[in-house]
C-alpha cells in the first residue's frame, strides 16, 4: 500500500531523510519510531503530498504523491502532530468543513459527527469556538475529525501527544476497529513505546534520517537482546537527547503570540 525506495529529503544543506526504503502492505499497522528530529514527520509530509521528495521513489496505493496529488489525497486520512483546527470556528463547524472537503454526504456527516463528538466527549461543547478549548479538547477534536471519513490509509503523527489515558484508549480502539473491519492501512508515529508494542504489526526505528531497524516488536527485542521495546529503542538510537531546530512556522507562531497576546486568541 505504501512503498518507499531510497527516499531523500533535503532542506538546503540539512538532510532530514537520508535514503530510506520500506514497504507497508495493505491492512498492516505500521509504526515509525524515532527520537525528535529523526525524520518521521518529514516522511509523512512527503507521503501526504505536503512536501516534494529531493530524490527517490514514493508510492501510495501505486501512485506517486508528487505527480498524482489529488488521487493520492483521495486515499488517505491524517491526524497531524501539530494543530490544524480553525480556532475561529466551532467544533461542529470544523467537523462540517472537514466532512465537506472529504465528500462525506450530508446525512452521514451529521450522524458521524454526533457519534464521534460524543465518543470523545465534546458534544456538550460542539457550538463553542475552538479557541476556547483546552489543549486536550483540541487534540480530541482533531482525532474525532480524523475519523469522520474512512480512508484506505490512515496517517497518525504522534496522535496521542497530550491525550489523557481514556482518550488514548478510545483512539487505539477506534484505530484497531477500522483496521480490522475496513482493512484500513495505518501508518503511525509515536513516542510511547507501549502503544507501538500494543497496536503495531511492524515497527521501523528511524534516527538521523536513516532507518536503523525494521521488524515486529519481538524481532527488534531479539535483535538487540533486550526485554522491552523501550530498551530495544534506546539500544538502537542511543541515549542522547535531540533537539529539533525551530522551523519558520514555529518562529512565526512566536511572533504571532507577541502580536496577538491577550488580543484575539
Amino acid at each position, binding site marked *: 500500500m505504501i512503498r518507499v525506495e531510497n527516499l531523500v529529503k533535503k532542506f538546503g544543506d540539512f538532510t532530514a531523510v537520508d535514503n530510506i526504503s520500506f514497504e507497508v502492505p495493505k491492512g498492516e499497522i505500521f509504526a515509525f519510531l524515532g527520537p525528535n528530529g529523526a525524520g518521521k514527520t518529514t516522511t509523512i509530509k512527503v507521503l501526504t503530498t505536503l512536501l516534494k521528495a529531493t530524490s527517490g521513489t514514493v508510492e501510495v496505493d501505486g501512485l506517486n504523491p508528487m505527480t498524482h496529488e489529488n488521487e493520492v489525497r483521495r486515499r488517505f486520512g491524517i491526524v497531524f502532530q501539530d*494543530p490544524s483546527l480553525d480556532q*475561529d470556528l466551532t467544533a461542529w463547524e470544523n467537523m462540517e468543513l472537514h466532512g465537506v472537503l472529504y465528500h462525506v454526504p450530508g446525512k452521514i456527516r451529521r450522524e458521524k459527527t454526533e457519534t464521534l463528538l460524543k465518543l470523545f466527549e465534546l458534544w456538550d461543547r460542539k457550538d463553542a469556538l475552538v479557541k476556547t478549548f483546552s489543549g486536550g479538547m483540541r487534540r480530541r477534536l482533531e482525532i474525532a475529525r480524523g475519523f469522520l471519513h474512512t480512508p484506505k490509509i490512515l496517517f497518525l503523527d504522534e496522535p496521542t501527544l497530550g491525550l489523557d489515558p481514556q482518550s488514548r484508549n478510545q483512539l487505539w480502539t477506534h484505530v484497531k476497529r477500522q483496521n480490522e473491519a475496513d482493512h484500513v492501512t495505518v501508518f503511525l508515529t509515536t513516542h510511547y513505546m507501549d502503544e507501538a508494542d500494543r497496536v503495531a504489526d511492524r515497527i521501523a526505528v528511524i534516527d538521523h534520517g536513516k532507518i536503523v531497524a525494521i521488524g515486529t516488536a519481538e524481532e527488534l527485542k531479539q535483535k538487540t537482546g533486550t526485554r522491552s521495546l523501550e530498551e530495544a529503542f534506546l539500544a538502537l538510537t542511543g541515549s542522547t537527547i535531540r533537539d529539533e531546530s525551530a522551523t519558520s512556522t514555529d518562529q512565526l507562531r512566536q511572533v504571532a503570540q507577541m502580536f496577538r497576546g491577550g488580543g484575539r486568541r
Partner: protein
Amino acid sequence: MSAIYILWLREVKKYSRSRVQIFASLGQPLLYLLVLGFGLGPVFQKAGGGSYLQFMAPGIIGMAVLFTSVFSGIALLWDRQFGFLKETLVAPVPRLRIMIGRTLGGATVAMLQGTLIMIVCLVAGFRPASLLGIPLGFVFMAMIAVVFAALGTAIGSSLQDMQGFQLIMNFLVLPIFFLSGALFPLNNLPKALSFVTRLDPLSYGVDGLRAALIGVGYFGAVVDAVVLSAVAVGLLCLGAWRFSKIEI
C-alpha cells in the same frame, strides 16, 4: 462546488464574528474621510474641483475594499501558522477550488466592508449622482475585491512568515492606494506620475467607482471594467499557481 462554498462560508463567518475588528477597521477610512475631506475641502473647492468629499468618497470606498481584500489573502499566513492550512492542503479537493473558495470569501468580506464605508460616507454627507449608479458601484467594488483578494492570495502563498509583511504593506499596498487617484484627480499630472497611475489597477477601480457614483470618470467606465477584468483573470491565475506550489 461544495468545497468552494464551505471555504467561502468560513471567511464570511469569521468576518461576521470579528465585531471588534470590523469596528476598528472603520477608523482609518473615517480619518481620511473626515480630516482630509473637511481639511482639504476648501482648497479643493477654490481650485475649481467642486466638493472634495464628493470626489474622495469613492476613493475611500476603494481603499477599504483594497485593504480588506489584500489582508484576507495574506490571512493565509495565519492559517499556515495556526495549522489550518495543512488541513485544506491534504484534502481530496483540487487546490484550485480551495484557492477560489478562499479568494471569493475574501472578496465578499471586502465588499461587505466597502458597503459599510459607503454607508459611513452617506452619513458624512456624500450624495451619489443618481440611485441607478449604486448597483454599478457594487459591480466595481466586486471587481476591485476580486483583483486584490487574488493578489493577496498570491502574496500569502509566497511568503513563509510575517517578516515580509511590512515590506508588502509599505512597498505594495500603500503605493497602490496612494497612486490610484483615490485622493487626487488623475488629469494634469506630471508625465511620470501619470504613467505610474496608469499601471495601478486600483486607479481603474476608483475611476469606475467615481463614474458609477458621481458620474465623473477619467478613463471611462467601460475601459475601467475591461482593464479590471483582465487584471482579475491574470491575478487569479497567478494566485492559483502560487497556491498550488505551497509546501509546508
